[in-house]
């Protein structure tokens, strides 16, 4: 290898930091001449601030965060681009044992079906309102997070108004299970292993999962300081190749044992290996001793899981508008669209000769079965990617989608 690049990346202790961690620990970064340093952080705010002052060139980020930063919605926002995603899926919605018991009375089953769970929750909320003046409280990790939007999407599709029927609060991921046990909250949506944490401790029950609400759903991305990317295109290309190879390694089931061991280590998530294996295998302990396997629970590599689809960026933007975080305006939509950079992904990976999507965006929710698609190089299969309510998101009909959701 000729040139060597020093890159410092911030990350949060979550299962979907796996691709960054594997890039370092399994030598994929080194093979591309990248000397990768990973720094564990305690909040998304800290990651954003340290990127703004140049401590980090890149970071593990919630997918809507760079979009929100570029829209000027967060403090100390420096321009951030997304040239690669860090996998699909990986979240779950967990409720307290008491709430689960009420939901079971109204037809919820231990199969993670979002429709049945949502209908049961709706009835349980009505029942709760008769005996208590306080709203049920659900926690998510951040206002600009997939968790916030998928919880709200699920509730709204089940006839529950997120801003009226319940209260949504914010809690850091590692503290979710404790907050549930302390009855500070009645439910939460979070990435693994923080739902497993409640299920194995016996303080909660997993009601449904992200992959069941919207299969092959975007979650975390690599946020890259735009100024750095412009100055060091070679370093970014090398890092993207390393992350692609790392994702491929993480996606192979035969590596899950080793990956779980690495992630469980003290510098990463620092929790039991068994907790990591739950999310990696998709066979979750959902509470009360029951387990359930979800196909595509967390997808690090297959189905073009690392491709930064502009339709993902626009869907997040549509939800920011839906929940009143930003005004609907064509200028804002353009900022969201330009945050994601599939062009950089393609140019960096081209030398690898691997299958790359030919399109920059797709209609989300249209694929009901695995579907081979047009791609440069080798063959590529996408989907299924359906929303549980059968909706479609066509990025070319963004305004109509936003208008439909106002009803």
């Amino acid at each position, binding site marked *: 290898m000729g040139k060597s690049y020093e890159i410092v990346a911030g990350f949060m202790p979550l299962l979907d930091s796996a691709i960054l961690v594997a890039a370092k620990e399994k030598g994929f970064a080194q093979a591309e001449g990248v000397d990768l340093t990973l720094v564990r952080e305690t909040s998304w705010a800290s990651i954003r601030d340290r990127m703004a*002052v140049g401590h980090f060139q890149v970071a593990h980020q919630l997918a809507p965060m760079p979009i929100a930063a570029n829209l000027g919605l967060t403090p100390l926002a420096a321009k951030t681009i997304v040239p690669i995603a860090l996998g699909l899926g990986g979240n779950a919605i967990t409720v307290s044992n008491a709430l689960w018991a009420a939901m079971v009375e109204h037809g919820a089953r231990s199969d993670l079906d979002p429709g049945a769970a949502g209908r049961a929750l709706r009835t349980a909320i009505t029942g709760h309102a008769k005996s208590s003046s306080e709203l049920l409280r659900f926690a998510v990790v951040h206002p600009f997070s997939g968790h916030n939007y998928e919880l709200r999407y699920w509730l709204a599709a089940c006839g529950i108004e997120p801003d009226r029927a319940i209260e949504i609060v914010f809690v850091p991921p590692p503290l979710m299970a404790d907050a549930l046990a302390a009855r500070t909250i009645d439910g939460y949506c979070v990435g693994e292993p923080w739902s497993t944490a409640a299920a194995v401790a016996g303080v909660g029950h997993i009601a449904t999962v992200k992959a069941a609400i919207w299969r092959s759903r975007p979650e975390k991305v690599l946020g890259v300081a735009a100024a750095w990317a412009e100055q060091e295109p070679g370093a970014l290309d090398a890092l993207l190749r390393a992350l692609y190879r790392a994702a491929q390694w993480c996606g192979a089931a035969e590596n899950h044992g080793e990956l779980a061991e690495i992630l469980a280590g003290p510098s990463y998530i620092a929790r039991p290996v068994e907790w990591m294996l739950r999310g990696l295998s998709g066979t979750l302990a959902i509470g009360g001793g029951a387990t359930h396997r979800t196909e595509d629970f967390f997808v690090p590599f297959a189905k073009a899981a690392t491709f930064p689809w502009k339709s993902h960026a626009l869907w997040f933007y549509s939800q920011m508008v839906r929940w009143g975080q930003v005004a609907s305006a064509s200028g804002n939509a353009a900022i969201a669209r330009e945050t994601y950079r599939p062009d950089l992904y393609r140019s960096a990976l081209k030398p690898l000769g691997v299958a790359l999507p030919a399109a920059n965006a797709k209609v989300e929710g249209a694929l009901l079965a695995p579907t081979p698609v047009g791609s440069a190089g080798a063959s590529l299969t996408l989907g299924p990617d359906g929303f549980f309510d059968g909706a479609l998101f066509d990025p070319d009909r963004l305004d109509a989608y936003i208008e439909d959701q106002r009803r």
Partner: protein
Amino acid sequence: MSERPLPLSILIIDENRLRAAVIEDGLRDAGYDRLTVVHDVVGIARKIAETAPDVIVIDLENPNRDVLESMFQLSRAVQRPIAMFVDRSDQASIEAAVEAGVSAYVVDGLKRERVKPIVDMAISRFNAFARMARELEEARSQLESRKLIDRAKGILMATRGMSEADAYALLRKTAMNQNRKISDIAESLITAAGLLAPPEE
């Protein structure tokens, strides 16, 4: 004659009570007496509503920063938008704060010259606290080393009949030959002596 403006109201959130006290002292000395200090974010929304702070200072590593920022956006308790620092172009000040581990939020519309001294004070107190903690740690480890060396000397004097000066000279020579610290050599010797000691009755 213009009325002197009321000093700004400041909320300090720090789980580290000692550091919070150090910052509080500094701000009080500088004439800021409208101070509230909390160590826990439970019930923070109510606290913010009650004290209506102009400036919030929180340690950068606090895992509840996302919770705090979310409150600025969504909670009905916090009416006014708050952003980190007054002037985003003040890059040097932002860098100094992040380096020191301070994060500050300021009510929108406040003038830079009113807020800058508070942020600067918080930065210098955070740095002073970090230096104090480092010095304390060094002092503690020096004390530990001296105890280890004393015990190792005692072992050499008892088992090999050496004088204290000779015992110390031997430890020092060994350390130099092996390019290690005297306290490391002492520790190895104590461990070895423990392993080789006759079983206790």
